[in-house]
């Protein structure tokens, strides 16, 4: 089942902050965040694992609430280059080894204006 992202779209002025949320009805092993610009490949931003480990770009921060199966991506002091569509991809807890089978949300369109 697809995770639900909110909001669907955000418009910011340069320097403003934004939070994008991702919610799943399934028990999650990990949450992956990507940004995709029009006509380009998704670019990795952050991975958050059950248990608290995470890996990502220095300027990006995110959280993962395991009890609620929710993740939030925090974009601070936004820049024009932050514009794009943000996707969360979730990996369910399974009995076997994790291998990164992701189910993506529908995306959040972020537009940053000068």
């Amino acid at each position, binding site marked *: 089942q697809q995770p639900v992202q909110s909001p669907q779209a955000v418009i910011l002025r340069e320097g403003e902050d934004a939070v994008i949320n991702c919610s799943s009805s399934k028990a999650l092993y990990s949450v992956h965040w*990507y940004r995709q610009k029009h006509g*380009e490949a998704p670019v990795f931003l952050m*991975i958050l694992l059950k248990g608290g480990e995470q890996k990502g770009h220095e300027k990006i921060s995110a959280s993962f609430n395991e009890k609620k199966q929710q993740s939030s991506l925090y974009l601070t002091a936004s820049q024009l280059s932050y514009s794009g569509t943000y996707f969360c991809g979730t990996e369910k807890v399974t009995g076997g080894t*994790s*291998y990164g*089978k992701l189910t*993506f949300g*529908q995306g959040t369109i972020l537009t940053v204006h000068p």
Partner: protein
Amino acid sequence: GAGVSQTPSNKVTEKGKYVELRCDPISGHTALYWYRQSLGQGPEFLIYFQGTGAADDSGLPNDRFFAVRPEGSVSTLKIQRTERGDSAVYLCASSLGTVIDYNEQFFGPGTRLTVL
């Protein structure tokens, strides 16, 4: 170093034809994923390879879709008897394939398939 590459970047075909889409992963990446992305949607998982074997093909929509990775590097997604509903961007991603790297996936630019 070189990223994930996909060819062709665009493919236009007629309904009923056969197509092949190619993915060249990052050197040394043992895990390879195929996704399909429709306009305004997130990528949809199709199939996952670990090495040469398809470890999970549960996302392939039907038996018209098939993928191979014979030498554990380049992969080809094959679609038989294409239908208009197959039109989408087909994305390939690769990762090191070890739990240690958290399965961070690097995506290619995609192949835009249009079935007329």
